[in-house]
């Protein structure tokens, strides 16, 4: 007998288990299925750096949080409605993120003494009243999966591997989701690599649905209706994949080779993986011997007339710093991707933070200005990477693209742009037409101050460049004091002028509100949601999101001056806040979190209340 169905606006589901349990896989399946059912979705994978930490240990817990909704959403959600805990460690690490009265789905087969001990439980939490604030849905997930696969040829260990699909079946039933997308995924994608798991995974998935339908542990199922999207064609996209596609789009529009020099590093490696798939676009990916070689090869590519790109995370960017200074000096286009992670040194490689802003702005010797722009959300990585390339090519300069672990690995629906409407790309190539005048490699465009791009192989334009100070116009080595000051100011002014080439700042709210919340990068969704919620309560608060961090938008000072109070929210100790305070002489309040985790909406809402003394 089917159970009653309740319609709800949105739901947050957190899948958690050992890193080998397949939580990321089923999380992605539920995401895609929900997106294709018309929901808005937002995800937050949270996994350890270790590939397989000891089974059952707290260190080995991998999580995947999915928020799906019939409304426009910007975040993966604060707390979850449903927690799927594959073992005691997953429960221990995540139960505090489950809402009161939330549904806790547990694999009871894993709650034996050994695993309980590993998770630090003295007694079995399922047997005392410590979880009484939750609805508990106990499933003998391992035994039931084995039972469903009794007829298959798999070994006992292999059968264990299928239990994530059993759990997914339960979730599909709970939210009335169709299985067709996942069935196709099992047959085509998984099947291509592991053909013998096709039938077992399908059996497990269907057994999960059937089991849930037959159980009386849950009173009703739920439905989240489609969201109202702008008309158009959509696909689900992860941040790092969007970066890759954005760069290819930029190279295609500019009619340039794309050359990506990189060295594997979490959480940027997926961009290298992604780009290496697109050889039919002429994309050349080079996995170099280290971070310095990676940026060097990209600079060499740009020198040779390609769109040179390198990507890394903070520790790798530190190693690239000297070469980026060279790119500043020789004024070649270069895009540098920094997918930020948490902490100094190795820090917390799989966690998120925004603490590399001052590094990319100032982490080089000498006066070494580099434009910096940051992506706001997974789908925005496409536009922002494209924009980074546009600026690099038009202004003949290295450009930093900032993202972070949460948007790099987060996914959301993306309204697919029409290729023909993407902004035009300008390149500064020169050829030697008349050959009467001496070529001046450091002559500049009057408006942008960009020099020209004379690529080796061009007859008549042979010239020398390098890291030594350049004489104005000729590019010859110069130690002349006045020339050095002139060139320093020219390089600075060139970057400053990019402010004339960026759109006006969008203010979300009313001029003259009591409080302005300023943020940048991957915190966009949380800040926007919190401000929207507060506005709905009638609170006088606005939000400004900064995409351009160097140069800052020309209108920002004016905007800031129209508010009584300004709070700058960042996942660091106050990096852009320091700049805003210095630049606009405003007593901006810092709102900072340094836990390797994104902001939660409720935290921002509380901060707004606190500042406004509500």
């Amino acid at each position, binding site marked *: 007998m089917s159970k009653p169905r309740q319609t709800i606006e949105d739901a947050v589901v957190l899948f958690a288990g050992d890193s080998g349990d397949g939580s990321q896989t089923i999380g992605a399946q539920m995401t895609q299925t929900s997106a294709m059912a018309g929901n808005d979705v937002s995800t937050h994978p949270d996994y350890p750096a270790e590939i397989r930490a000891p089974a059952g240990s707290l260190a080995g817990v991998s999580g995947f949080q999915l928020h799906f909704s019939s409304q426009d959403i910007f975040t993966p959600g604060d707390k979850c409605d449903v927690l799927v805990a594959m073992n005691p460690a997953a429960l221990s690490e995540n139960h505090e993120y489950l809402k009161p009265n939330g549904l806790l789905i547990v694999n009871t087969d894993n709650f034996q003494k050994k695993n309980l001990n590993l998770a630090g439980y003295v007694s079995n939490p399922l047997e005392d009243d410590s979880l009484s604030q939750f609805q508990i849905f106990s499933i003998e997930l391992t035994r039931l999966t084995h039972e469903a696969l009794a007829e298959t040829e798999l070994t006992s260990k292999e059968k264990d591997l299928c239990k994530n699909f059993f759990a997914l079946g339960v979730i599909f039933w709970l939210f009335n989701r169709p299985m067709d997308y996942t069935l196709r995924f099992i047959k085509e994608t998984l099947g291509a690599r592991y053909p013998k798991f096709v039938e077992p995974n399908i059996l497990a998935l269907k057994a999960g649905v059937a089991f849930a339908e037959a159980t009386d542990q849950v009173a009703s199922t739920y439905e989240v209706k489609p969201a109202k999207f702008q008309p158009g064609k959509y696909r689900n996209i992860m941040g790092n994949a969007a970066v890759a596609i954005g760069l290819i789009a930029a190279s295609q529009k500019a009619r340039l080779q794309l050359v990506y020099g990189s060295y594997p590093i979490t959480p940027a490696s997926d961009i290298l993986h992604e780009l290496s798939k697109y050889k039919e676009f002429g994309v*050349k990916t080079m996995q170099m011997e280290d971070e*310095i*070689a990676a*940026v060097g090869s990209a600079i*060499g590519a740009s*020198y040779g*007339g390609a769109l040179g790109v390198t990507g890394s995370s903070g520790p790798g960017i530190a190693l690239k710093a000297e070469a980026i200074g060279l790119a500043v000096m020789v004024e070649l286009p270069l895009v540098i991707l920094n997918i930020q992670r948490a902490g100094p040194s190795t820090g917390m490689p799989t966690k998120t933070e925004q603490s590399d802003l001052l590094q990319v702005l100032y982490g080089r010797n000498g006066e070494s200005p580099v434009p910096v722009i940051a992506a706001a959300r997974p789908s925005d990585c496409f536009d922002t990477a494209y924009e980074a390339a546009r600026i690099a090519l038009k202004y003949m300069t290295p450009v930093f693209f900032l993202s972070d672990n949460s948007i790099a690995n987060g996914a959301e629906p993306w309204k697919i742009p029409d290729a023909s409407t993407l902004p035009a790309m300008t390149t500064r190539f020169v050829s030697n037409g008349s050959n009467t005048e001496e070529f001046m490699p450091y002559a500049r465009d009057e408006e942008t101050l960009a020099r020209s791009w004379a690529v*080796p192989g061009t007859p008549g334009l*042979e010239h020398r*460049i390098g890291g030594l100070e350049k004489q104005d116009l000729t590019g010859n080595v110069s130690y002349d004091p006045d020339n050095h000051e002139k060139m320093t100011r020219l390089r600075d002014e060139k970057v400053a002028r990019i402010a004339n080439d960026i759109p006006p700042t969008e203010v979300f709210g009313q001029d003259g509100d009591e409080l302005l919340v300023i943020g940048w990068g991957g915190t966009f969704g949380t800040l926007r949601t919190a401000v929207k919620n507060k506005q709905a309560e009638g609170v006088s608060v606005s939000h400004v999101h900064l995409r351009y961090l160097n140069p800052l938008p020309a209108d920002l000072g004016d905007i800031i001056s129209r508010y009584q109070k300004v709070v700058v929210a960042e996942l660091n100790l106050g990096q852009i806040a320091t700049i805003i305070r210095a630049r606009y002489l405003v007593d901006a309040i810092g709102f900072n979190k340094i836990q390797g985790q994104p902001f939660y909406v409720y935290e921002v809402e509380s901060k707004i209340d606190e500042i406004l003394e509500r």
Partner: protein
Amino acid sequence: MNLVKRKFRSSAVKAIETNSPPVAVPTLTHRDFESDQDKRWCPGCGDYSILKQTQKILPELGIPREQLVFVSGIGCSSRFPYYMNTYGFHTIHGRAPTIASGLKATNPDLSVWVITGDGDTLSIGGNHFIHLLRRNFDINVLLFNNQIYGLTKGQYSPTSEVGKITKSTPTGSIDNPFNPISIALAAGATFVARSLDRDTKHLPVMMKAAFEHKGTSFVEIYQNCNIFNDGAFFTYTEKATKADNVVQLEHGDPLIFGANLDKGIRLNGFQPEVISLNGDSTYATDDLITHDQFTEDPTLAHFLSRMTENEELPLPIGIFRSIQRPCYEDALAQQIDTQKEKKGEGNLESLLNAGDTWVVD
């Protein structure tokens, strides 16, 4: 030298090969390769000689000037590109191989030369150097080895001998030097040679051979720093001592040297040793090592590279090894061609619309 495959593919050469109307290649002289910049090397520096030899051979290579790119790192030798009227990139310390690699991958038609020194390539840039050799880009590397840091005013280098007294080692250096030829061979280099700045006959031959070799060509050039390490190589370069202290490697020839060509090198077990070929000697030419630069196995080349470690043995100059292997930039381009054949030329519209999509009306 005729055994070395000619490899340069300038557009002019291509046009000739495909029987198109011949493109006139202007006749250039060494002056066409001199830039207008004043040279800043100390008077008497060995770099002048290497620069001159380079400018002398370039017109003979038949490459249009715009196809030539000299990429350097940091150090005295790395000022080289400023003095060449070609494309040039004076980069940062040790990193020239990385920039040259990106450039060559982008435009395989260019003739790319890396100019570097012992500090630049074996100390700060050691990692890039071995990886460049392993990838076998078609790039020519000229290592000016003066066994000293010149531009920073006289500290010992990774090729300086143990015990060297310098500004940073007033009581003598205590670290063992690298053997550049051995390192290049260990890294899988496909072309390895050594020459001398003052040998104006031998050096251009080595540079041309490096140019003609398809793959990374490594030429170590002993270069005199007359300020901080004057005379380090005079035993090998000066008339009075050269013949008895240098053995010239020639493919197919036995290793014979000496003012009277009466000494040879034979292998005694694993040890090369000098034997006399005088009338009363029990040895004959047949007992000597016969040089084979084309053999795939690098063992012989390794033996020869280690001869500098034994003061009894002469210094080998010439080509240690010259073998053929696929080049990185060609393999890269080929993978792209294969994917284009398989999937068709990339289409941006289909890329954007790939994967599972849905339409909202």
